[in-house]
């Protein structure tokens, strides 16, 4: 089991953060375009996950419209709690509580990036299977 990548969007659909861990296939477009394209994946309340034959996308949206999207492989069970934790213990702590971070712009806090990276790497399903 593994985590592929993670997107954070704000309520206007701009991409605040993009993190990548085990991504084997790059879309045939630049990351900026991926961000723009990924903005199409904005559905209504109540949407939780979708899965294809190869990966599973987990979606979490707060009442303020922050959207956290994580792609993992199929073996990962419901990751709603994890996405909520990313929001409450990382985004709120290191972005919202940091007066130098302008809300609604791409996140530039190194502290946030390193903490997020550590958090994702510590997840029980992070390490890819020996294939």
């Amino acid at each position, binding site marked *: 089991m593994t985590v592929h*990548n993670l997107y954070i969007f704000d309520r206007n659909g701009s991409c605040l953060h993009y993190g990548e861990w085990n991504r084997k*296939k790059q879309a045939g477009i630049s990351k900026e375009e991926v961000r723009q*394209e990924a903005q199409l*994946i904005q559905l209504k309340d109540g*949407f939780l996950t*979708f*899965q*294809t*034959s190869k*990966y599973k996308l987990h979606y979490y949206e707060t009442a303020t419209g922050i959207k956290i999207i994580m792609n993992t492989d199929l073996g990962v069970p419901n990751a709603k709690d994890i996405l909520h934790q990313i929001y409450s213990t990382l985004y709120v702590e290191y972005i919202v509580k940091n007066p130098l971070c302008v809300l609604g712009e791409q996140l530039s806090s190194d502290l946030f990036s390193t903490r997020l990276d550590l958090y994702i790497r510590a997840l029980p399903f992070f390490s890819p299977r020996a294939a």
Partner: protein
Amino acid sequence: MAIFSVYVVNKAGGLIYQYDNYVPRAEAEKTFSYPLDLVLKIHDEKVVVSFGQRDGIRVGHALLSINGVDVNGKFTADGKEIIEYLKDSTNYPVSIRFGRARLSSNEKLMLASMFHSLFAIGSQLSPEVGSTGIEMLETDIFKLHCFQTLTGIKFIVLADPRQSGIDALLRKIYEIYSDFALKNPFYSLEMPIRCELFDQNLKGALEIADKASNFGPGS
């Protein structure tokens, strides 16, 4: 548990068949006095609740009837604008029925082609090589299962999240499609399916799948 509906989408994203098996009805009727304690707005030629949830009336519910007479889009049965009608205090007390608006055939066509492109985006943005499009999409009240054949036809089933045996049902529907739609000499490819035998067999398959689960609709 229940199977809600079935969609068949051709390879161009056109909806060629749709069947609603079980539509949960959430309706609420209530008598209001002036002024109305709900905020209403016009959305897509329908009057919907935009703020204020109470007594089973939810945001997004459409106004279905006033004093027991069904409304006609954003107009009352006798042709007055509903919003104007409800502004007039002499019309109160008024009894209004709210509920989820049924999807029109046009909206269903739109949703089918929207899913068609989401399916493609799902496979394009894949972090792994060789991924298909969306096979299963889960929300808190339903699960959407999609099976794409090699020829590009998509069979989509919306069911309760706890419903089992959907994969077998999707393949059964494919079989019914091959047997009763494709072998019908009056059926032209990529066009809407209007074959009685297809209808009958699909309904039969849905009944069997419904019975396979232990609980009936609404449980």
